[in-house]
C-alpha cells in the first residue's frame, strides 16, 4: 500500500541524511589508516588500499600523544568532579533551602548568562598571571568550577523533591548536610549523570580557554595540541587525521555509552526554561 511506500521513502531520506552527516567522521577514520600521501591520490578513494596504523604509532612515539591524552583526561575529570560538587550544592540550596534574597539572587545569576565569556577573559588572564596560575592545570580548571547553567539544571530538578521528605528527615534529627548526602544526592542521580556528561564533554572539547592559559607544550590538551600540530604538519593529511580521530574518539565513546542521559537532560533543561 501507499502507506508502506511512504514509510520506505521516509526511511530512505533519513538514511541519506544520516549518511551525509556521518560521512566526514567516517572519512576521517578512513584517511587516518591510509599510507603516506595516499590522501593526495587522484581521484580520491574512500577506503585505504592497505590499512596501516603507522600514523597512530608516529603520534604515540614521536609526537607525545599520550601526554596530551593524559592532560585532557585529567582536566576534564577534575572539572567534572569539582563543578558537579559546587553546582549541586548551590542548585539544591536555590531549590529547597531558605535564605534571604534567594529568588532575587537567582534571577540575577540567570541574567548574567547573556554576558559573553570574552568580556571577562582578558582580566581573568591578568588575574591568573598575578597569582602565577598561567600555564598551570589549575588555571584551566578554576573558571569552570561553578556555572550558572549547572546551578540552573540542578535547581530545576531538585524542585521536584517533595518538601515532606526533607522535613521528615529534619524531624528525625538529621542535619542539613546529612540530608543532602543521604536524601538529596541519591534522588538527583539522573541529573547528576547528565550534568557530569555535559561538563566532561564541554571541558574535553574546550579550545579557547586552554589555548589562552597554556603556553607550554607539555600541558597542552588534545585540541590545543592538534591545532598546534596543524600549523607544523598541515601537509601530512593522514597523520593529522589520526590525531583528529584520537581527539574525537573518547568523547564519542563516552557520549554513545551515556547518550540516553545526555539527550534527555538536554531536552528537559531547554523546555523547563
Amino acid at each position, binding site marked *: 500500500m501507499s502507506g508502506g511506500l511512504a514509510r520506505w521513502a521516509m526511511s530512505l531520506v533519513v538514511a541519506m541524511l544520516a549518511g551525509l552527516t556521518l560521512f*566526514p*567522521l567516517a572519512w576521517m577514520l578512513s584517511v587516518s589508516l591510509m599510507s603516506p600521501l595516499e590522501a593526495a591520490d587522484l581521484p580520491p578513494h574512500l577506503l585505504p588500499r592497505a590499512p596501516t596504523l603507522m600514523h597512530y604509532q608516529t603520534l604515540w612515539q614521536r609526537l607525545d600523544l599520550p601526554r596530551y591524552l593524559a592532560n585532557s583526561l585529567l582536566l576534564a575529570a577534575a572539572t567534572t568532579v569539582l563543578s558537579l560538587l559546587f553546582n549541586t550544592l548551590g542548585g539544591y540550596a536555590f531549590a529547597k*533551602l531558605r535564605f534571604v534574597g534567594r529568588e532575587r539572587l537567582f534571577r540575577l545569576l540567570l541574567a548574567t548568562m547573556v554576558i559573553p565569556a570574552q568580556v571577562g577573559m582578558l582580566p581573568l588572564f591578568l588575574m591568573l598571571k598575578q597569582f602565577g596560575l598561567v600555564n598551570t592545570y589549575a588555571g584551566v580548571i578554576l573558571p569552570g568550577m561553578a556555572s550558572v547553567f549547572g546551578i540552573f539544571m540542578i535547581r530545576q530538578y531538585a524542585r521536584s523533591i517533595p518538601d515532606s521528605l526533607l522535613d521528615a528527615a529534619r524531624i528525625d534529627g538529621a542535619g542539613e548536610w546529612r540530608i543532602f548526602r543521604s536524601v538529596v544526592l541519591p534522588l538527583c542521580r539522573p541529573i547528576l549523570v547528565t550534568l557530569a556528561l555535559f561538563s566532561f564533554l564541554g571541558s574535553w572539547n574546550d579550545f579557547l580557554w586552554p589555548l*589562552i592559559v597554556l603556553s607550554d607544550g607539555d600541558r597542552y590538551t588534545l585540541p590545543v595540541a592538534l591545532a598546534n600540530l*596543524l600549523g607544523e604538519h598541515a601537509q601530512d593529511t593522514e597523520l593529522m587525521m589520526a590525531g*583528529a580521530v584520537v581527539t*574525537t574518539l573518547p568523547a564519542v565513546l563516552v557520549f554513545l555509552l551515556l547518550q540516553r542521559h545526555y539527550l534527555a537532560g538536554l531536552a*528537559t533543561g531547554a523546555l523547563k526554561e
Partner: protein
Amino acid sequence: MRTPLWPPVNPALGFVAPALLLIALFFVLPVAAGLVLSFTDFDIYALGDLDRLRWIGFDNYRRLWNDPLVGRALGNTLYFTLVGGPLSVLCSLGAALLMTRPGLPGAAVWRTALFLPVVTSLVAVAVVWRYLYHPLYGALNHLMAWTGFEPIDWLGDARTGMPAILLLAVWKNFGFNMVIFIAGLQSIPARLYEAAALDGAGRWAQFRHVTLPMLAPTLAFVAIVTLIGHLQVFAEPYVMTQGGPADATLTVALLMYREGFRWWKLGYASALALMLFALILIGTGLQTWLRRRGARS
C-alpha cells in the same frame, strides 16, 4: 517575622557560598574589570610595568569606530549570524520533523547518528573539513568536477570562505537544536492533531495552525541560544582560515583574541569584547521585542 527562628548562621549559606564565591571571583569580577580595562590603554608595556597604565576615557571606543578591520569583523560576524543562524535552525527543525514522523523505524538510532557531530571537538573535525575543501584533493571539488563545475578554492577565495565555514558550523551544530525541537514536538498533545484532522485540516494546515504555534516557546528559546552562540563564533575561523583570506572570515571574537592575546592590547581588546556584549544585548532584545509583537498581533 520568621527571622528570629533561624539559627545564628543559616546552613544554606554553606551550600550556596562556594558556588557564588567562585562565580563572583572568576566571572563577575573579571567582567567588571573588563569594563574598566576598556577605558585604559593597557598594553604590553603596562603588562610589564603597571605605572604605564593610563586612563583614556572613550578613546578605545573611538578607535574601534574608525577601525576598518572592526567594520570588516562586524560585517562577517553579522553575516555568519544572520545567514548561518536561520539556516542552522531550519535544518534542525527539518531534521526534528523527520525524526518525529510516526512510524519511522529506529528513530532513536537515527537521532543519535545526527547528534554525533555535536560532541566532536571542533579542531578535530576542522582537520577533515579542511581536507574536504582542499582545492586539489578535496572530495567537494571532485564532486563538482563530476557534475561539470569548475573547481573552487573554497577556503582560499574571499567569496567562498565564509559560506564554507558556515556549512561546517551548520553540520557541527544542527543536532543540538534538533534534540530540543524533538522534545518540543513530542510535548504537543496528539489530540490537537486529531481535532485538526477532524476539521479537515491537511498536513500543511496542521503544521501551520497546530505545530508552529505550539512550538513557539521552543522556537524562541532555540533562536536566542543560536543567536548568542553565532555572535561569539571563534574556533571555526581560527582553525579553518585564521580569519583569511583577506580578512573575509575575520570575526569579532577572533579579532578580540588577536588584539588581546597576540598583540597584548588588552584595553582595546576589552572594548571589542564589550562591543560583542552590546551586539548580544541588541540581538536578544530585538528578538524578544519581535516575539512580543508577533504574539500581540
